[in-house]
């Protein structure tokens, strides 16, 4: 069960606004992720119950779409754009450099939970490729040096964090 707090009140309100309809499942998953940051098993079960759907159906939908995060992300998040334009502009080199320097693989977090590295398929700023997003800041026309420096700064506590 979810803790009774403002976040739950907000989520319940949205579920009610959608009249508990099956077709609003994606909207509700979006709202839940926006409010809680990620969707764990507990949350998926709660939504399943609220919409009178089998938990397997809700879990199936949540795992099908790559936008939904099923685990809590690290304190700082680096996301590399692996769209075609960024790939052609060698974003792979930057990603490998981050993996080496901070000893983590894409799609995971460091063991201390400080840093997560994700990939995304195109943020649509292709003319500025390659793009790397550090926390909420998009670094366009990025290179290894700038990105590594920015991540180090974030980890030292100097970066902005929303």
């Amino acid at each position, binding site marked *: 069960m979810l803790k009774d707090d403002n976040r739950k009140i907000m989520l319940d309100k949205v579920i009610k606004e959608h009249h508990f309809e099956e077709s*609003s499942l*994606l909207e509700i998953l*979006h709202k839940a992720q926006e409010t809680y940051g990620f969707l764990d098993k507990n949350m998926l079960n709660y939504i399943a119950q609220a919409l009178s759907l089998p938990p397997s159906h809700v879990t199936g939908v949540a795992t099908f779409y790559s*936008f*939904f995060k099923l685990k809590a992300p690290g304190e700082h998040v680096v996301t590399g754009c692996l769209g*075609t334009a960024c790939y052609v502009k060698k974003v792979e080199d930057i990603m490998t450099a981050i993996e080496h320097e901070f000893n983590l693989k894409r799609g995971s977090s460091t063991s201390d939970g400080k840093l997560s590295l994700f990939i995304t*398929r195109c943020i*649509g700023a292709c003319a500025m490729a390659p793009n790397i997003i550090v926390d909420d800041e998009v670094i366009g026309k990025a290179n290894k040096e700038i990105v590594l420096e920015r991540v180090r700064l974030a980890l030292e506590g100097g970066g902005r964090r929303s």
Partner: protein
Amino acid sequence: MKLADLQKIAEHELDFQRAYRYRINVCCSSGCVPFGALKVLKAFEDAVKEFGVEKECKVARTGCVGTCSVGPAVVIEPGDYLYQSVTPEKVREIVRDHIVLGLPVKGMLYCNEAFFKKQHRLVLRNAGKIDPSRIEDYISMGGYSAIVKCLATMTPQGVIYEVTRSGLRGRGGAGFPTGQKWGLVARSHSTPKYIVANLDEGDPGVFANRTLAEADPHAIIEGMLIAAYAVGAEKGYIYIRAEYPLAIQTLQKAIAQARGMSLLGDNVLETGFKFDLELRFGAGAFVAGEETAILASVEGRRAMPRPRPPYPANSGLWGKPTLIQNVETLANIPLIIQNGGEWFSKIGTPRCSGTKCFSLTGQINNPGLIEVPMGITLREVVFEIGGGIQDDRAFKAVLVGGPSGGCLPETLLDLPIDYDSLTKAGAIMGSGGIVVIDDQSCMVDTAKFFTDFCVEESCGKCVPCRAGLVKVKEIFEGITSGTGKPEDIAALDKSGNYIKEASLCGLGQTAPNPVLTTLRYFRDEYMEHINDKKCRAGVCFRNMVNEEAEK
């Protein structure tokens, strides 16, 4: 609200705009915002006040002008002076010289006329010119007059006739004749009927639909209204990627404004016509762009395609007749109604009328968003509009149509861009991505990259796509790591063609395109990888080199 009221709003708005001598349009689309466009907007607002010219100079927040590589972009009217890479620090100088003294700041202007010369802006007619958050701006450009014309003077059949006569074909990629599709839905007897506007631009490297939604949301809404009137639908959904927050915000605001003016709702413009629409959010699934998959997703399920028939025109959302249309197609509709189908049919080529928006990216001098008439050649797009290859490097290939498009070589640069020519060459129109590749990229690696993408995005429903692509990926891993065998070429060719022929939906049917086109046009690179263990771009075999160095 009636037609006369609409004209009144348009005239009032035009008078209001004429009161200003200058208009400063600051591009605040997703391409420019990450690079400080909002700060530039604020700086302009402050600077016009500082110089005391706020009464004669309107600062507007607009959508994209297309020159995304030199953002933030600012256009000053009259004269369409385009300033590039504007920073808040440069703003005072621009206002002082251009507005107060009347002398454009030459050093900061974008002086690349070639980028615009061969473009033909229909769908993007208002992009970068109007403030997308103000419905009055759209109305002042003649907006919503097409739906008024339909409701007042045209029958639904008449609307479908005009659209058919225009020769407009679906801009989502497959190129199905739009008028014919509307006819199918209109003739379907079951009710209610639905419209789904496809804004799930899942192709990496493509941002044309998003830019349209951010720059001119009302054009999409008006197109949907006209389509709804023609086919008899009462409810519409715009299915949009959740990764496009600004486009979502812009559309939400536009829908609310349209409702406020009774352009949407139970009694549109007091004519008794009923239509309303809602946004539905995608969640990062490439396959959701497929027409039966998008229906599953709107219904809140996994976006998995189903066999057709039944076609959505007969059995779509919740088993009811549904018209599915790309937003770019819809944005063309108001123009066709205003100017007539015949006018539209004369733009582009006889078999492929109109224009197409492309995101032009990759190793090219002028990347950005362009709109060109159908039938323009790839050479014109890459070398004239795109300004050629960056750093004067050698052109190698142009990828047309996203991750399931085709890689075309230099010998095909004179190919005209239309649905049929592209398909014949092994590529597709897709949703409109053109990525230019130079000699720093390896074609084998590029084909592998797209295969990896399609493996991840395959929904897993049918075997050829789910298992076949994994097999293709394994062969690629062998070739790029040094264990490739000569028979791999035939295996790739065979598997690719199997997947193409046997897959259920468009994703599987087009996924092998990059593989098959690179095999067709760049076979020598494959042979080098297999026989000589050599990658001329120096991209593959990296692990091998490292291992040797460690020894």
